[in-house]
């Protein structure tokens, strides 16, 4: 279980995250929603070692993640993908994934063998297949479509064998059809890999349809938690979030 307790983070005196407590039970699927600037990406950064919290604790299966290096947090089993796909533009899909597996298995400094080490291939191809990237393995990442770049970003996190996967807006910048394809893939991934999956999403249709549990962040605070039905009817959420034009457009 991933537990977040009393988490605080401020930038220049402005609180980005204040007193957030959320539990993510093993194998759960949670959507994090909230208006722009609610602190969602900051929240992910605090969990994945991208930022260090001012106060509070993040523990995974009882072990604290605070103050650990990114590498240690990855080893603990926390993986993440990014809102804007962060990929390696000049490398092919296969090279990127092989490189990630190599780093994960502590062979990044190896100079005596040729790249790729044969034992890295299985995991690479497994993940490529899971995300439908097999056809694209030889393609240079910069030449991938936007959607495939997002998939590659997720694949890069997935080859590291995470137990918890953080996806920052997996459907950002996609058309409606593409969104649903993406989210189906993510959902399938969650079921197959028995991951604890946490994702940030703006599209309310998607959130209410696939997330059994939703956490609402607003101005850095945890506004509400619950099932889609509870969130839909929560007066505080309606006032603070669903009342915005963004939600109106989505609902």
């Amino acid at each position: 279980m991933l537990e977040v307790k009393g988490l605080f983070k401020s930038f220049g005196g402005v609180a980005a995250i204040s007193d957030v407590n959320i539990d993510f039970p093993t194998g759960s699927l949670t959507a994090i929603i909230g208006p722009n600037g609610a602190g969602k990406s900051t929240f992910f950064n605090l969990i994945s070692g991208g930022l260090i919290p001012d106060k509070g604790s993040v523990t995974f299966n009882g072990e604290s993640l605070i103050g650990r290096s990114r590498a240690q947090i990855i080893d603990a089993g926390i993986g993440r993908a990014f809102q804007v796909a962060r990929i390696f533009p000049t490398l092919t899909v296969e090279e990127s994934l092989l490189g990630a597996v190599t780093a994960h298995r502590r062979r990044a400094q190896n100079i005596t063998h040729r790249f790729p080490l044969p034992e890295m291939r299985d995991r690479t191809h497994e993940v490529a297949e899971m995300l439908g990237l097999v056809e694209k393995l030889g393609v240079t990442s910069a030449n991938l479509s936007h959607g495939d770049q997002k998939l590659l970003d997720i694949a890069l996190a997935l080859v590291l064998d995470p137990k918890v996967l953080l996806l920052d807006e997996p459907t950002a910048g996609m058309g409606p059809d593409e969104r649903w394809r993406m989210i189906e893939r993510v959902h399938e991934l969650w079921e197959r890999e028995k991951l604890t999956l946490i994702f940030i999403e703006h599209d309310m249709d998607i959130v209410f349809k696939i997330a059994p549990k939703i956490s609402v962040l607003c101005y850095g605070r945890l506004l509400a938690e619950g099932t889609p039905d509870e969130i839909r009817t929560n007066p505080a959420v309606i006032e603070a979030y669903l009342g915005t034009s963004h939600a109106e457009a989505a609902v």
Partner: protein
Amino acid sequence: MLSTRPNLARDISIAAVALIVLLLLPYVWPSRMMNDLVIRVSAFALFATSLNLLVGYTGMVSFGHGMFFGFGAYAFGLSMQRLGVSIPTAILITIVSSALLGLVVGAISIRLKDIYFSFITLAFQMLLYSTVIAWVPLTGGDQGLMGGIPRPPFLGIDLSIESHRYAFAVTIMVVGLLILRQIVESPFGYTLRMIRDNTERATFLGINVFRAKLTAFVIAGVFGSLGGMVMALFVSGAYPEFVNWTMSGEGIFMIMLGGLSTFIGPAAGALILSLLNDVITRGTEHHGLFLGAVILLFALGLRKGVTDFIADWFRTRREASTRSGN
């Protein structure tokens, strides 16, 4: 695709053929000038290729790589002159001391990003340059290391003989490039490419960026200093120009001229620039004017290295053939 990736056996064969051709060259075409050119190009090829490990493969734009070239020349020359050791020992001293230099300078410089990294490497180079100029009793100041470097025979090799010197230089160059080639095609080489492409993402894959960059910096430093060592053997001395900023400038021009996206590009650039320098020096007193004009033509006209053009040509041809094949 990965199946056609160059393997070690192929690279060794290419290196062996190249070495044999270079070793036979003086017999096929006996020319003092040719020998001199090949030795100088060998020194510069090591220098430029090692610089490209940083610039091209890791995205670390060092403006101070000449520091290692000069350091290698002085370290080797001083070991031979002052310590009276054998040549293999002096080579070992050069390698170890330049690795230490790379470790110290790298550990400080790598913490700085982008243009600041470039500047601090240049600053360290100029610091070394100032030291060389100022420490007259040791280095001979602006006169350079005078009196020649002793070249006692070892293992049947006598570097005071021109043909031995030639064979020694090309062997060090070919073996050096082969090792560098192995490094850039190793898992570590791909770690460096990932850091170049997206440093932030690399850290989120658990890559220790600092450690990888420092390793690259030290390796590049060692091979850069071997280039300087070959040069010192060739001119039987070491001069402040080897440590001066122009050395770094020429190194960068070499890799741009030859192309930094191919492994052999920088070595090709070393050859082209050396030829160019010879032609210009022979044809005119106004070396800077003509070299400058050539650089301008390159930077504003070609904009790509020679081997980049060749690689592009092959790529277009291959793509055309796959398209027509479908």
